[in-house]
Each structure stands twice: as C-alpha cells, then as structure tokens.
C-alpha cells in the first residue's frame, strides 16, 4: 500500500510537473544557440514563469517519493515501474498541451505498459 502511494506520487506528480515545465518551455520558444550565455539567459527566463515553479514543486514531490521508495526497493524495480508515466504523459500531453498522439504512439505506450506489468511480476 505504502509502495502504491509512493508510485502514485512518482508517476502522477512527476508527470504533471514535467507537463508544467514543458508548457513553460514552449512559451519561451525553440533554443537555437547553445553558448553558455544564451543557456543562462534561457534558464533565467524560464525561472520567471509561474508554470515553471508549479512544475518544480510537483517534480519535487515526485523526487522525494522516489528517494523514499529507493530506501527499501531495488533501483532496477522502481525505475522501470515508474515508466507508467508514459501513459500518464500521453494523456496529459493530449489534454493539457494539445499534442496529437498518433495511433503508433498509443501502440508504443501500450507496449511500455505491458513491459511495466512484466517488471511488476518480477517483484520479490
């Protein structure tokens, strides 16, 4: 049960956080120049956006849940199971960012979920 709650935070809060960050990044626009100065100005620009901070807060919740679960579970179990965020990510990206998810992507995501199920069975 404790495990399920921690996985819920890792998958749902982590993914929601990434979607918020993605929304913030898209509003800045594509990065063309990789010089240290332009990367710094890009980071400073990002830190001014409320979506960025909401994203960081949600991702932090996911991160601390990850630390907690890593204290009693193997890395090779926890990280593959957290791949459930693919499914969460696709639904979120469609609803919240307006990305179009093609049939191929849905198929890939379904295969990922099958893999997660198999890893879950390998639980000791």
């Amino acid at each position: 049960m404790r495990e399920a709650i921690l996985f819920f935070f890792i998958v749902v809060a982590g993914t929601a956080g990434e979607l918020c960050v993605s929304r913030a990044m898209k509003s800045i626009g594509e990065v063309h120049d990789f010089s240290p100065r332009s990367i710094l100005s890009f980071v400073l620009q990002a830190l001014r956006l409320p979506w960025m901070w909401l994203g960081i807060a949600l991702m932090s919740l996911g991160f601390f849940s990850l630390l907690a679960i890593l204290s009693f579970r193997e890395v090779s179990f926890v990280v593959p199971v957290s791949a459930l965020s693919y499914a969460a990510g696709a639904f979120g990206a469609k609803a919240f960012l307006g990305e179009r998810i093609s049939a191929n992507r849905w198929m890939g995501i379904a295969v990922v979920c099958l893999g997660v199920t198999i890893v879950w069975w390998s639980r000791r």
Partner: protein
Amino acid sequence: MTHTRRLQLKTIPLILICIILGPLGNVLLGKAMKGVGSLNSVRILDLAPIVPRVLMSGYIWLGIACLLGFFTAHMLLLTWADYSYVQPASSLSYVSIATLSYFVLGEAISPLRWLGVAVICLGVFVVGRTSPSTTGAPKDA
C-alpha cells in the same frame, strides 16, 4: 536540409546525454538511500532524524548533480520537441538503468525483469519512430 533532419541532428546527442546521466543519477540515489536504511514510517517526526544522514551522503549529491545535468538537457529538448516524443525517446535509459543497477549496485536482475525492461524498450522504439513535433508549423531551413 529539411527542418526534421536539422531537428534530429541536435535532438539525438541531447537524448544520448539524457540516457546516460538520468540512470546514473538514479543509481547513485539508490546507493545513498540504501545506506540510510528503510524509511518505514510515514510520520514526519520519525523521518526528521534521517534527513541529515541523507544530506551528508556524498552519493546523494553526486546523484543530484547527474540528475541536474539530465534535467538541463531535457529542458533544452522540450523547447522544440513534443513532450510525448522526448519522454519515450530518452527512455532507452531503461536498459542503462538495469545494466547500471547490475554492475554498480550488484542487484540481481531476474530473466523476467530483463524481459520486462526489453518490452519497455520495444514500446519506446515504436514511439520514437513518430515525428518529433506535431504542434508547431514545420518550415524548411
């Protein structure tokens, strides 16, 4: 050069950086947290004495440094590529997480778990073959 080709030239190296740094960070966090002991309680007061021990662990900071590198590369990717493309494509990292767990942490990985990881990667491969961006208007550069 087409827009898609130009996108791939900068997308692929950044995805490789993500595939190496992300799992390495997680493995280091795992090493640190195993050293701290199991967090069995859900009460904040019981967790409090563990926090300084976690913060004093060198592996935690190394892991966080790797994850920050991963996060920066990931943010850069997200300025031009779809989230639903980047997330799966950068996640060949499931092979590197299993490999690093085996070699660095000495975790026993059963054949069933390897099969699960392989199936996840197959799913990733299917998703990775779709177009990087669907929301922006593509232009030839």
